């Protein structure tokens, strides 16, 4: 209010002494009038842009859905689009904040025993399924002992650590573990352990159950309709257990197969939200410059994707760590981050993402240094031939968007400078998955989710007993270091936090020296949303959260 300030700076009377009202009365009167008017204006209600405004109820949210999921039953399928939709209909026992600390969800409080072998969860009361049936501890027991171990590979691995699951009463569940497993508290996120309704699935063929076309969960939104190829429609759950929530009336998930069309849809305001890699990095700067769109990278701390070059150790010279170290020195990660991913990512330093628990930063650094790379290759005895080529490797381009094609091309250029010739091989996602899982590759890009804890998403890539042909997200490189295996195994059952960190730190240091894969970036996905949307990202799973807290400014505000 500069006018007010200037008025106040000037003395109310023109000279010191007793108040000479008559002399300066006109100016004095004018000043008082102006102040009165200003105060009147200030006392009027502010326009609706202040932080502390009231939440607006109702309205519709439109979210991009790409690709269309095969099913919405979260217990049967956990790909990202399924999570995006099903995360509004199903819930897990816990939620996690941006630092991966557990928060209540269907479990309102919990206790972990001293020895870390008994976990007791106390459930929320008054929770019902979408069909009106009451939610009880029986559903948890059924989900964790029968349903998920049958259908969900990640949950199967998690619950192989569990001895028994019992329900002393309708509101309490007790997990007894076979041995300590400190990561257990991080596994109750909705896509890792979605709670399924026992009264619908018990004693049925889960994959062929009639109700698979009508998802029933406990979440704030209910399934309304699915027009294949077009959209999925969810509506507000009137009987949601959190009082007064959700705020939205409907959510539509729109299927838009073309990348340019998705960007246009955000521009024209026909959709409100995009997530994961719906929009590729090169489109993000243009969209973030628009006044009605915001971009944020929070909300992916739980998945924490780590992107690397996966390299098959079964072929020389890839079996020699010096070769892999040389490649690591020859790639400029900052260039990749800034020019291929347009700033969407953090330079990776090792196997654990910096937002995942137990991250260790004190490891050997592979700064961009082509001379060191050449020195290592010389040491290996790989002399350049008449064309300057020291080694030829085939690189399978990851079919996950234009960005990875550019990354492959950059890698080819960068490595040719140190004498490694890459021949690029293109394929589609089925062909890529087939080749990778059957070890029919030499080098490729990959990115893998970490799920908050090295025991849940990191160790699987590096341990010897996860070398399994035909299985994706396993140790496809064929790397085997017994010491690393021992460290991971010990850390997974170590209850003492300091000892556990020491073990994981040692494992990370050894891995960074061995370079089983060449870590490039901690990927950041852009969540792009219209400014009319509020409270979109509130937990570590971002847009795959229930959206109970999301509200939108309606037309006319």
């Amino acid at each position, binding site marked *: 209010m500069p006018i007010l300030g200037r008025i106040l700076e000037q003395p109310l009377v023109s000279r010191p002494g007793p108040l000479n009202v008559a002399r300066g009365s006109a100016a004095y009167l004018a000043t008082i009038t102006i102040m009165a008017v200003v105060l009147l204006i200030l006392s009027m209600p502010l326009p609706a842009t202040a932080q502390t405004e009231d939440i607006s109820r109702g309205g519709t949210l439109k979210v991009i859905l790409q690709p269309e999921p095969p099913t919405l039953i979260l217990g049967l399928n956990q790909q990202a689009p399924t999570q995006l939709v099903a995360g509004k209909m199903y819930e897990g026992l816990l939620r996690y904040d941006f630092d991966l600390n557990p928060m209540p969800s269907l479990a309102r409080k919990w206790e972990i025993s001293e020895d870390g072998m008994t976990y007791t969860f106390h459930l929320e009361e008054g929770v019902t399924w979408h069909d009106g049936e009451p939610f009880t501890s029986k559903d948890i027991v059924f989900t964790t002992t029968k349903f998920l171990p049958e259908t969900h590979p990640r949950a199967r691995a998690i619950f192989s650590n569990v001895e028994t699951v019992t329900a002393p009463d309708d509101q309490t569940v007790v997990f007894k573990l076979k041995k300590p497993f400190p990561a257990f508290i991080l596994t109750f996120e909705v896509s890792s352990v979605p709670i399924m309704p026992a009264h619908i699935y018990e004693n049925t063929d889960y994959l062929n159950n009639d109700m698979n076309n009508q998802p029933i969960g406990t979440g704030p939104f209910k399934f309304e309709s699915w027009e294949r*190829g077009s959209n999925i429609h969810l509506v507000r759950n009137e009987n949601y257990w959190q009082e007064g929530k959700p705020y939205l009336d409907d959510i539509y998930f729109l299927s838009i197969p*073309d990348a340019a069309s998705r960007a246009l849809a955000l521009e024209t305001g026909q959709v409100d939200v995009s997530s994961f890699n719906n929009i590729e990095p090169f489109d993000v700067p243009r969209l973030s410059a628009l006044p009605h769109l915001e971009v944020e990278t929070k909300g992916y701390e739980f998945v924490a994707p780590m992107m690397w070059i996966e390299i098959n150790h079964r072929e020389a010279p890839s079996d020699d760590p010096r070769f892999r170290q040389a490649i690591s020195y020859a790639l400029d990660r900052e260039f990749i981050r800034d020019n291929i991913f347009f700033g969407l990512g953090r330079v990776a330093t090792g196997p654990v993402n910096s937002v995942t628990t137990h991250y260790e930063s004190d490891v050997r650094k592979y700064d961009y240094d082509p001379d060191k790379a050449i020195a290592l290759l010389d040491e290996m005895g790989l002399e350049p031939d008449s064309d300057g080529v020291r080694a030829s490797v085939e690189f399978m381009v990851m079919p996950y968007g234009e960005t990875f094609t550019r990354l492959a091309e950059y890698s080819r250029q960068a490595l040719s400078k140190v004498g490694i010739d890459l021949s690029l091989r293109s*394929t*589609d996602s*089925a062909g890529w998955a087939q080749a990778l*899982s059957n070890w029919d590759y030499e080098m490729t890009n990959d990115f893998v989710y970490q799920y908050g804890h090295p025991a849940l998403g990191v160790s699987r890539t590096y341990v010897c007993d996860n070398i399994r042909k035909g299985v*994706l997200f396993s140790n496809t490189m064929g790397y085997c270091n017994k010491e690393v295996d021992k460290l991971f195994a010990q850390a997974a059952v170590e209850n003492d936090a300091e000892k556990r960190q020491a073990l994981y730190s040692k494992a990370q240091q050894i891995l960074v020296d061995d370079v089983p894969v060449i870590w490039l970036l901690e990927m950041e996905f852009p969540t792009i949303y219209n400014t009319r949307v509020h409270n979109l990202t509130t937990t570590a799973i971002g847009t795959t959260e229930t959206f109970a807290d999301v509200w939108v400014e309606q037309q006319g505000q």
Partner: protein
Amino acid sequence: MVKVAVFLGHRLVKIALIMLAIVIINFSLIRMAPGDPAIVMAGEAGASDEQYVEQLRERFGLNDPLPQQLASYVLQVAQGDLGYSYRQRRPVADIVLERLPATLLLTGIAFIFALAMGVLLGSLAAMKAGRWADTVITTFSLLSYATPIFWVGLMLILLFSVQLGWLPAFGYASIGGGFQGLKHVADVAAHLVLPVLTLGLFYMAVYARLTRSSVLEVYDMDFVKTARAKGISESRVMYFHVLRNASLPVLTFAGIQAGHLIGGSILVETVFAWPGIGRLAFDALLQRDYQVLLGVFIITSLMVLTFNIITDLLYSVIDPRIEVA
């Protein structure tokens, strides 16, 4: 009439044999692509183990020997059952027939638009051959033909949706609009304008060029000179004498195109997020959903073959000198 019946009878036998060949060839081709639906779903899940992949393979019936899978599929199709998609957990017939009307609507209207406009412009160009109208039309046709369809589509969206805001950018109808009756028809019509324009411009160019050259050829014939000598006006000469004779090449091409349009609108369907079977086939290919892909191939093959028969029958209607054989 008997001739037509005999003709149809012969054709139907040929159709059965062709369909058999199509099924066998497509089945083998699809299986040659690396990967299978189980590995695709495992990749999408973000986590995997042997049990998961094995379960899927068992469900999808992928563990039987290939000839056995082929034989059982052929028998199944012969009985009219297009199979079951394990990925989507629905019968293939439902999946395909659900998406077919959207494609038929789009391609049907685009076809009529392209044919009508193409013949109109082509005859106009022929009538004004050598003059500026002819040059304009010919150049425009060349541009429409040479420019990639998806680029045209995106440019139209940029102009009409983003800049001018006149038309919706994508989709079949306004999501959540809840329109009924006439309002719904108007809504779908608004969504149809840009895709029809995009798809139609390309084919219109072809018809225009074809009509133009065909009409020019007929113009030089004696019976046209006779008609003019009789005193008939130029437009009557065109519509009642020239066009019918000039239309045979156009009809041939239109018959082939009609078949293409059924399965070939995938670029337009992708750009405009149109829920048709072109996109269904593309997605099924990427997901290795064999049953759905084969189902789409069978339906589109049948439609192409049907259009071929209709074209052949139409020949004899337009030109009685041609007999169905």
